[in-house]
């Protein structure tokens, strides 16, 4: 029986950030969803209208609910469905934060190749998150 090999510091930091970030995201997601489905908070798209709306393509759905693409949902966090999207956004941000957190460690080790790889991956995810990929649609 061998002992567990020592964990590289960047893997420890990545694991720690991912653990706490995803935990916060899940708690937020479940709490917001409960507020939404129990009717404690109003909704952008009322629950009783959803069976008609969820058959529509996204562009038609947004038009029917007076929604918009990108980060528009963040302006209506008093609505249960928008607050639930905040939980989803937190979860989706976890890989970005975890990758960004290990860049200083790679730089300290003078491992510039991995520092650049992490920087590029974080940049791709930030670009996807920014909404600039929509090119004006939907």
């Amino acid at each position, binding site marked *: 029986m*061998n002992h*567990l*090999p020592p*964990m*590289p510091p*960047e*893997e*420890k930091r*990545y*694991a*720690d950030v*991912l*653990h706490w970030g*995803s935990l916060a995201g*899940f708690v937020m997601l*479940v709490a*917001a*969803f409960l507020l*939404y*489905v129990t009717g404690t908070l109003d909704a952008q798209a009322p*629950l009783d209208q*959803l*069976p008609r709306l*969820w*058959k*529509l*393509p*996204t*562009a038609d*759905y*947004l038009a029917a609910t007076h*929604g918009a*693409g990108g*980060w528009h949902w963040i302006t209506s966090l008093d609505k*249960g*469905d928008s607050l*639930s*999207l905040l939980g*989803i956004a937190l979860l*989706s*941000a*976890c*890989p970005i934060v975890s990758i960004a957190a*290990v860049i200083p460690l790679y730089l300290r080790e003078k491992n510039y*190749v*991995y520092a650049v*790889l*992490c920087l*590029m*991956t974080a940049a*791709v*995810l930030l*670009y*996807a*998150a920014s*909404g600039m*990929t*929509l090119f004006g*649609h*939907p």
Partner: protein
Amino acid sequence: MWSLGMFVVCFFMGIAAVPAGVGGGVLFVPIVSGFFPFHLDFVRGAGLLVAMASTLSAGPSLLRNGMASLRLVMPLALSAALSSMAGAMVGLALPAQSVQILLGLAILTIAMLMMLSNKSEFPHVPKPDAWSRYLGIHGVFHDVVSGRNIPWRVHRTPAGIALFLGIGFLGGLFGVGAGWANVPGLNLMMGVPLKLAAASSSLILSVASASATWYYLNSGAILPVIAVPSVIGMMMGARIGAHLLTVLNPTVVRKVVIAALLFSGLRSLLKGLGY
């Protein structure tokens, strides 16, 4: 009511997915798009979230147990994240009917590949390639079952990076996780030991799925009433599935999952063709 239905269905998918060795997304998208009344855009958005959430929760313990390697993950995750975003853009731009047909064909192909694919616990890597030597993709992973530390290295790194470009694209296009392709790609093509491949695949998937999930989220293609109960059901089911690993016969479960994929793939294809 539909949320409860999604929770129950995803709970059972989660139980079956772990012993069958597939992620939840590959079961979720064809089954839900084939048998539930939701538009395919919302099903794919929820499928990506399901795939991402499962891998996010597993990632930290896989790293802490020495089962996954960040050095192996990063170059492939960059490749998959780029193409996954492109796949999401193409997927939401194409007519839903075309995507439904392509999805049916893809799922039927995946089921065939699962039937035919081999695995190698510890593949032989005679000589690491120049890229993997430059990137330092090697290490020692701890096999919890045997208690042994197993040295590993990889070959065919450029081909692996190219493969992950393709896998990421399909994942973003169809909203499915890509564990079914990641693990054979890492194991059979690059020579990564099977357990390290499965665990590292999970971390790659979390990054690739996040990139496509952001695109779906920004496009308004994620409906919490579909996505959230699916995520919770799948994660609870997966926990039970992991415990049942010692009780259930993985070969039997794998056959059931392949049958479910064949059935739902055929259903997707027929639905796309208007039947």
